[in-house]
């Protein structure tokens, strides 16, 4: 695998969707309109926790231009259907009641009712005329309040799932718990020469995708539904919507638009079942587009957390014991990323004795959704801060300390299995030899180092590769293209068929046009869908070889395929001239018909991705404001198919992590209303806030993929929280354990 010489893989062609995107021609979620279309609007709860006593829609229905009004009571009442799954799993009852509340509202901004009208303004005005009678309940707004013995309970029927034995008696807000351990923790700490212990806190932060959620739903007289929407997975929208509405999924077709960022936040549904139900009622298409404020208030942030952490080492830097007790906010319904957070926390190091517990806790805030390496940045913030503290106390170089403890192939991961080939050590060595690590620091500057780990998912994918008569090809998959996957897929087809990337058209197919494909997420597309693309391309090559064999009158094994041509082989050499793909494609009709390669597969998890980040931070001691002055992200990509987009993933994840570390947070008032639901007050870093983020691609081939590819999209957000905090420690002398390290918080700490 590693010896293979690539012609197209590893190059940097211009992405096929690039010109449309930079010229504004690309069609995103809100760009689609249907003839006769209505506009939908939602009424949202003004309370963070309340029982719905009644909903009176008569005034709204009487407004001229209103064509349909919908309440949660009109959606099918689902039984709890918990499906243990990624990042805590899903319950379709929860998804349904998050789309439209039924009996209770569980966060400020929870959708209660919907209106479809001839204009967006009429829909919004009518929605506001819906009268809802609430019985206000005490909101549960933080983790300590949620787990207190006298806490108000969000869900009377909530039973904890996982490693909770015995189960708490009576109702609880603790929805689940996971636990991992190894060795004898107390003995390990007794053996340590130095032990550091801290409590770390992070706040809810949003994925911050530029494009708000949007969809259009149309229903025909035959009850066939078409949904155009922005999503990370058309098949998920189809199946989830069918489940929420108790419809036959065969009646729903989903066409994914271009997507203006998702980062995990578009792996679930909010608007689509509501738009379908309104369209069904009004018998006209319905378009729904969220405002930025709605996106913040009612779509998936990731968890706020509390992590109590303890780490012990010998004088030579050998880690000997660790202990973590973690609490993750799930928001209104169960399903925080506590599990993967626990699995990643010690993922980078050989620690012989540890104990990790992580709790999934419901609170009266928006239901969290996946966000890039869900759960890992928060737990890693704690562990990498403590590794930094230990290195300082022991007078060790932070990279040497990490190298001393780094996991290698054959080591056991903290969650059980043994690692295959991994590249953590290579990223640390690349960091050590990088000019950044040797560069002098200026006044009020500090340098931070942190490592990070993410699993990378596999899951199910399908691909079709169709050959056209001119020898060009179309590759169709079911994955919305978030990070340049179309270009990478075209490169894979080029590599197998031997035709230029510009002669491959990559297509994001709708749910009627390609086999089932799991969502774009989990850093899985280049890996798993890429494997399907390679297999489908090889299917095309096999068919081309068979056509050449037919033309030459030889056996199949006498035809080789190389650089876009069929070549005689195995004794047939010299008898025939090579047949280029263009000629074979031209003859498809007379040699057996059109050629289409197909592949569908379920891939195992994609092989761990490790990264090491270096951050230089400068702090203004007068104001507490800080600025990242240099940042380098180093990560094992296995094999970078399109290095430019791999670097883009490293840079994007780093930027989001830096924002999380320095500025971003949901701020709630005492009633649970978010006070900063806009980009002016919810401060994400923009290009002018950051230096050019340097990148180093390390390539330790992944044996699970034919080219050695690993997922790369999520790992880059894991190290930055700690890398920035460690740099802040260097710049200020203060160990920050609470994020974000915003100017007022920094100023208060350095003045203390």
């Amino acid at each position, binding site marked *: 695998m590693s010896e293979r010489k690539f012609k197209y893989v590893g190059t940097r062609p211009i992405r096929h969707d690039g010109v449309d995107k930079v010229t504004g021609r690309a069609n995103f979620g809100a760009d689609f309109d249907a003839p006769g279309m209505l506009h939908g609007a939602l009424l949202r709860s003004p309370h963070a926790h309340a029982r719905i006593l009644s909903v009176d829609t008569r005034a709204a229905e009487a407004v001229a231009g209103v064509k349909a009004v919908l309440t949660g009571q009109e959606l099918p009442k689902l039984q709890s259907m918990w499906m243990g799954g990624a990042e805590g799993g899903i319950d379709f009852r929860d998804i349904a009641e998050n789309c439209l509340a039924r009996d209770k509202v569980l966060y400020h901004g929870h959708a209660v009712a919907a209106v479809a009208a001839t204009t967006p303004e009429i829909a919004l005005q009518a929605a506001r005329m819906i009268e809802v009678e609430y019985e206000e309940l005490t909101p549960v707004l933080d983790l300590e309040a949620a787990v207190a013995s006298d806490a108000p309970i969000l869900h009377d029927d909530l039973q904890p*799932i996982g*490693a909770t034995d015995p189960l708490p008696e009576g109702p609880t807000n603790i929805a689940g718990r996971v636990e991992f*351990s190894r060795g004898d923790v107390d003995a390990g700490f007794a053996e340590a020469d130095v032990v550091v212990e801290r409590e770390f806190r992070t706040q809810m932060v949003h994925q911050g995708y530029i494009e708000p959620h949007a969809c259009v739903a149309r229903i025909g007289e035959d009850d066939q539904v078409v949904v155009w929407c922005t999503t990370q997975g058309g098949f998920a929208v189809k199946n989830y919507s069918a489940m929420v509405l108790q419809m036959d999924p065969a009646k729903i077709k989903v066409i994914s638009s271009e997507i203006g960022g998702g980062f995990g936040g578009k*792996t679930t549904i909010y608007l689509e079942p509501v738009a379908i139900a309104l369209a069904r009622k009004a018998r006209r298409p319905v378009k729904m587009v969220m405002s930025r404020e709605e996106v913040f208030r009612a779509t998936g942030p990731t968890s706020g957390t509390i992590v109590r952490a303890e780490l012990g080492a010998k004088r030579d830097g050998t880690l000997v014991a660790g202990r973590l007790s973690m609490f993750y906010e799930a928001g209104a319904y169960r399903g925080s990323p506590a*599990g993967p957070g626990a699995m990643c926390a010690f993922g980078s190091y050989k620690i012989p004795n540890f104990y990790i517990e992580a709790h999934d806790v419901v609170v009266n805030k928006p239901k969290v959704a996946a966000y890039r390496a869900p759960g890992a940045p928060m737990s890693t913030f704690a562990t990498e801060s403590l590794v930094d503290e230990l290195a300082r106390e022991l007078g060790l170089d932070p990279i040497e300390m990490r190298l001393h403890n780094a996991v290698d192939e054959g080591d056991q991961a903290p*969650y*059980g299995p043994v690692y295959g080939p991994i590249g953590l050590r290579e990223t640390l060595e690349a960091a050590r030899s990088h000019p950044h690590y040797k560069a002098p620091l200026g006044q009020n500057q500090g340098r931070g180092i942190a490592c990070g780990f993410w699993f990378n998912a596999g899951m199910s994918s399908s691909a079709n590769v169709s050959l056209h008569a001119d020898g060009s090809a179309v590759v169709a998959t079911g994955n919305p293209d978030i990070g340049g996957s179309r270009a990478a897929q075209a490169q894979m087809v080029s590599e197998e068929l031997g035709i230029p990337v510009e002669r491959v058209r990559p297509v994001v197919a709708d749910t009627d046009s390609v086999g089932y494909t799991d969502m774009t997420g*989990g850093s899985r597309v280049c890996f798993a869908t890429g494997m399907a693309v390679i297999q489908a391309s090889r299917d095309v090559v096999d068919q081309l070889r068979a056509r050449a064999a037919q033309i030459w009158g030889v056996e199949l094994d006498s035809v080789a395929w190389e650089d876009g041509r069929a070549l005689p082989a195995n004794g047939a050499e010299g008898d025939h001239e090579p047949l280029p793909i263009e000629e074979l494609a031209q003859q498809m009709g007379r040699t057996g018909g059109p050629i289409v390669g197909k592949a569908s597969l379920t891939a195992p998890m994609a092989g761990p991705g490790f990264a090491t980040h270096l951050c230089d931070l400068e702090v203004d001691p007068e104001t507490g404001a800080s600025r990242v002055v240099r940042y380098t992200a180093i990560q094992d990509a296995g094999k970078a198919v399109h290095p430019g987009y791999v670097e883009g993933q490293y840079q994007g994840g780093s930027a989001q992590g830096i924002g999380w570390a320095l500025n971003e947070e949901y701020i709630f008032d005492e009633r649970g209303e978010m006070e900063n639901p806009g980009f002016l007050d919810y401060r994400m870093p923009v290009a002018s806030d950051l230096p050019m983020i340097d990148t180093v691609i390390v390539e330790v081939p992944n044996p699970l993929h034919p080219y050695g590819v690993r997922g790369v999209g999520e790992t880059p957000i894991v190290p930055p929280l700690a890398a920035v905090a460690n740099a802040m420690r260097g710049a200020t002398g203060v160990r920050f354990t609470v994020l974000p390290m915003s100017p007022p918080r920094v100023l208060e700490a350095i003045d203390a």
Partner: protein
Amino acid sequence: MAQVHFGSGLQPHTGGVERIDLDVPRVREMLQELAERYPGIEVQLEQMAVAVDGQIYNDAPYQKLAPTSEVHFVPKIGGG
């Protein structure tokens, strides 16, 4: 026989057993065997992925187990 490992989170359901060796051909038969030996554990295992010889499978009842296979149970992983 396949070595099946139970993390500390599962051990309350196995009476503290950390590892057992099972002569089973596939993940499915392993899960059936575990449900018989440790009644109630199946509810926990339904929510989990299975790692066979280091490879994590979210849902693979028909994955074959070799006599030398090592099996762990881990939370299911997707991602963002």
